[in-house]
């Protein structure tokens, strides 16, 4: 019996320590505190010193949050992003599942692309969606090409299988385009 009592104390202690860390993946942020938009929007010029590095290390507010990414998936469908981006494969708009990012793959950059809009047809969403929703879309778009932690990416939808589920997409590898001035290869 004595060993059992020690076991119970140890387990309780471990449980309290673990509870204090409270897994971020499973958080549901239901209050109105929205993450702020980026303080400076990244310019639309793609020139930068040195070769371009496709980042998979910077995190947006919802990148490691399963519920937020799933809400981004809902928004993707409701805002008809598939109308141009076709479930991530591209059509009138560029593909979102690959590793070619015209305007950059960092969360800030994707936020700007969605909020500001881009030339050649990407609408401006900053008057239609609030910051929380745009960050959720950012997380979802990044998950499509494997840039977010795997455990937080959404799984298959209850629709026809039009694309592999983001949770099955391999993790994106850092890619160095190697071109001087950071120009993207055609």
């Amino acid at each position, binding site marked *: 019996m004595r060993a059992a009592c020690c076991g119970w104390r140890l387990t309780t202690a471990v449980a309290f320590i673990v509870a204090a860390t409270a897994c971020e993946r499973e958080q*549901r942020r*239901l209050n*109105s505190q929205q993450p702020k938009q980026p303080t400076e929007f990244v310019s639309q010029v793609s020139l930068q010193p040195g070769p371009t590095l496709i980042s998979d290390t910077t995190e947006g507010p919802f990148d490691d949050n399963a519920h937020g990414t799933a809400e981004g998936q809902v928004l993707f469908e409701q805002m008809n992003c598939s109308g141009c981006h076709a479930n991530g494969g591209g059509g009138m708009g560029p593909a979102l599942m690959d590793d070619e990012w015209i305007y950059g793959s960092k969360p800030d950059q994707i936020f700007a692309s969605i909020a500001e809009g881009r030339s050649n047809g990407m609408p401006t969403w900053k*008057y*239609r*969606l*609030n910051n*929380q*929703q745009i960050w959720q879309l950012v997380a979802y778009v990044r998950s499509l090409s494997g840039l977010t932690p795997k455990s937080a990416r959404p799984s298959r939808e*209850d629709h026809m299988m039009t694309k592999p589920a983001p949770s099955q997409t391999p993790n994106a590898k850092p890619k160095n385009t190697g071109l001087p001035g950071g120009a993207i290869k055609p």
Partner: protein
Amino acid sequence: MHSFFNPTSPQARAVAGLWWWMFGVGAVIWIGVTILALWAANSGRGHRESDGLTHVDPGTRHRVERIVAGGVFLTVLILAGFLIYDFSVGRLLAEHPPRALTIQVTGHQWWWEVLYEDPDPSQRLTDANEIHVPVGQMVQFKLRSVDVIHSFWAPNLNGKRDLIPGYESTLWFRADTPGVYRGQCAEFCGLQHAKMSFYVVADPPVKFATWRATSSLPATPPTTDTLRYGQTVFMSSGCAVCHNIAGTGARGTVGPDLTHFKSRESLAAGTLANTRLNLTRWIQNPSAVKPGVRMPALPFKPAELNALVSYLETLK
């Protein structure tokens, strides 16, 4: 308003009748068995033998055997009676006339989309969270879901039916008394299952026809500057992306139809009374009323919000 004990349709009345019989017989059985058990526990007919155990003479034993067998037989009879009564009520619930008003209800997380069918497409009417039915006429409901399982339940009017993705279920009832009846989603459907209610408004047939005619019209155009400004706010911000107001450029199908929003008793799927104050509160921060809801809090300036609310208040 939402009590099973207040049936207002033949369907609900039939079920209530069945319930009262079962309740009566059940109460008698419950009290009877309890009294029997307490009596048995306080008596004891056997006599103690030298081995410390209790024995009974064969006569008593046979009597008890017959009583137990009688009790079992009585149970079988009562159950058979309930079974037959239940089947007859089931048959009544399954009866319906071939042509009746048909309303298609589609469940969303966490609101009800209502479509009044009509052979003439221009007479089809889309609404949300409040269902009007004519008194004295059988109404058929076709129930579907776009996401998870919901359940459509208006206790005064009939039992519930699940809305299951991939299936279309049907439900029938006929409201016999005019009134407003409340229903609520009865299958756990996520964070705001608790606040996914609806109202069934039963109107006399003439009033229903008037309501239907008015509701088929597009939205009243704004007449004053404030109202026009409010409509501009609606169209240029995120509202028009999700909501539909017939007769305007707002064609969203993501959220409830708002064409005749102000004619409804409640907002946010039966959560708040449809007053100006509640509407302001709701638009300012939907997550404070229904945490987890998908309607966002958009950054309106006070003047914008004021005009927007005024505009919405005109959508009768």
